[in-house]
């Protein structure tokens, strides 16, 4: 048993006023600094939480089912937090397993957890919650008009639902509460709202929902809210009136300005945290220094949502990607580069489409010119000392993508242009082969809100006894 029954009783009866939550990692799998984590354990937290994923990393991971982090680093981080939680006998809660939180990501994470338990002789009750939403459920909701796009996303179609490689929904507070109530020691969730991981326990204890979600939104990024910001574990102590934040690295200070500033991070509106359960209004939030390194936060208000919703994410394969990595330093070539890359597209098309349709997309990013962002509206075109050229082909299969890229490489190397003097070759290759097959490419094709009647039905809970 995970011991939260005693904690909840103690809070309800007034024997204890506050709950201590350790935010161990905002991106499990990229390394958890040991010293701060150990310092956090010494403070006897009631729960350890880690966020493991995000949509910010792009569609490739959700589409492919692969993790963004290396297996070795992921296992090392899981070993650290599993060991720490078992040593204290407190729940370990991990959300958005394996970067994108779909079935293969969750399975990969569970496999590592079982491996570590066997190697380290750990016994515990494991709870896991898949986040995959069935195509039939999404289509049924679509037909009932219960799906709407997020931001500027187009309306969802049944074809999108069929085409998506994986479709996940973000589970929230409700799912984590079920898992905690089950008595599980270790809880691994598929795709989840990062705030659900950390707010479920204080909300179960009857502490204000707005405060719990505000706290969760900050600690899910570990010590990023500090000055200087960093990856070290952070301790939040939450009671009925507010919460205190303290980085477990003595070099990092949670100051009123640094904590307030964190509300800006990766959110379109700093005054509102939008979650499936409702919205947290931070207009009246207060940030007060307790000392040079600790800040107390209060004032968040919660407005429950009128309808139950799940945010859906899906990614679809858009073909095979191959790239060409090369560069140029000839001033005349750089002067004519825009025209050169336009012409090379025609040259390549004539060569590779002799007996075949133009079934691919060929694009170039010209670093030093406009590879990262468009040219300034009122600036003169840059004349860089050298440019890096990234050629990219998306084609129906890897052979076709590599054919286009290899042809591009050869003809771009020797293409003529006005005033050309460097007739031995236009390109510098950092290594060969300069063409690289990057495998399947994906894009997000589902980013929508689905209204539901019973959220819990979409995120089933499974329990497993892990024994030595």
């Amino acid at each position: 048993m995970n011991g939260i029954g005693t904690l909840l009783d103690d809070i309800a009866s007034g024997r204890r006023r506050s709950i201590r939550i350790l935010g161990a990692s905002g991106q499990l799998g990229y390394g958890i600094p040991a010293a701060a984590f150990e310092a956090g354990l010494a403070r006897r937290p009631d729960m350890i939480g880690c966020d493991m994923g995000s949509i910010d990393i792009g569609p490739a991971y959700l589409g492919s089912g692969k993790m963004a982090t290396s297996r070795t680093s992921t296992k090392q981080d899981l070993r650290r937090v599993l060991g720490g939680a078992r040593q204290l006998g407190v729940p370990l809660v991990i959300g958005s397993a394996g970067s994108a939180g779909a079935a293969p990501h969750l399975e990969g994470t569970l496999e590592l957890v079982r491996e570590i338990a066997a190697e380290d002789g750990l016994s515990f009750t494991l709870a896991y919650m898949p986040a995959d939403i069935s195509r039939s459920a999404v289509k049924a909701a679509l037909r009932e008009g219960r799906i709407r796009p997020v931001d500027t996303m187009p309306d969802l179609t049944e074809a999108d639902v069929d085409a998506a490689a994986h479709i996940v929904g973000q589970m929230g507070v409700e799912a984590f509460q079920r898992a905690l109530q089950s008595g599980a020691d270790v809880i691994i969730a598929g795709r989840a709202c990062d705030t659900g991981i950390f707010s479920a326990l204080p909300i179960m204890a009857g502490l204000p929902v707005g405060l719990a979600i505000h706290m969760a939104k900050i600690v899910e990024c570990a010590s990023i809210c500090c000055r200087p910001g960093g990856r070290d574990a952070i301790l939040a102590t939450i009671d009925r009136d507010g919460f205190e934040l303290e980085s477990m690295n003595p070099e990092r200070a949670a100051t009123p300005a640094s904590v307030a500033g964190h509300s800006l991070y990766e959110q379109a509106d700093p005054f509102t945290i939008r979650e499936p359960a409702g919205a947290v209004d931070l207009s009246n939030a207060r940030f007060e220094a307790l000392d040079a390194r600790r800040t107390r936060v209060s004032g968040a208000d919660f407005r429950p949502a009128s309808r139950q919703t799940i945010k859906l994410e899906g990614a679809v394969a858009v073909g095979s990607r191959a790239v060409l990595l090369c560069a140029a330093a000839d001033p005349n070539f750089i002067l004519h580069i825009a025209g050169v890359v336009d012409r090379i597209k025609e040259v390549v098309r004539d060569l590779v489409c002799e007996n075949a349709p133009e079934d691919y997309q060929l694009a170039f990013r010209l670093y030093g010119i406009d590879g990262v962002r468009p040219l300034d509206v009122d600036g003169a075109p840059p004349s860089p000392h050298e440019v890096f050229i990234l050629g990219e082909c998306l084609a129906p299969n890897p052979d076709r993508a590599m054919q286009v890229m290899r042809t591009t490489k050869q003809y771009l190397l020797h293409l003529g242009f006005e005033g050309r003097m460097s007739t031995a070759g236009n390109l510098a290759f950092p290594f060969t082969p300069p063409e690289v097959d990057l495998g399947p490419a994906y894009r997000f094709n589902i980013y929508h809100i689905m209204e539901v009647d019973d959220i819990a039905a979409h995120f089933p809970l499974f329990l497993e006894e892990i024994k030595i």
Partner: protein
Amino acid sequence: MRLDQMVSVLRSKNAGPLVLTFDLVFPDEDRFNHVAAAAETLRAEVARRYGEALERVAVHIYRPALAIKISIPRKVMSGDPGDRDVYGAQQHAPLLGIDL
């Protein structure tokens, strides 16, 4: 004065895969107040520099952090073919030279 001479932080990042958000954090109230008072000019200049309709540029004045947040739609969804910045972390440079 140029924005890059007034801010302590000026950054861009995705707020979800379809929104690009800019944070301007000021080191003191004077500079924060100066720019906050010119928020409409700032909004118009962002619209012009990013080729965006004025009504699609959202500006939030966030006094608790002496910060101003500006959000605009992404022209290409994060990670779509043709995207140049999946995280959106390098789209802030056109703001640096805005004179207010």
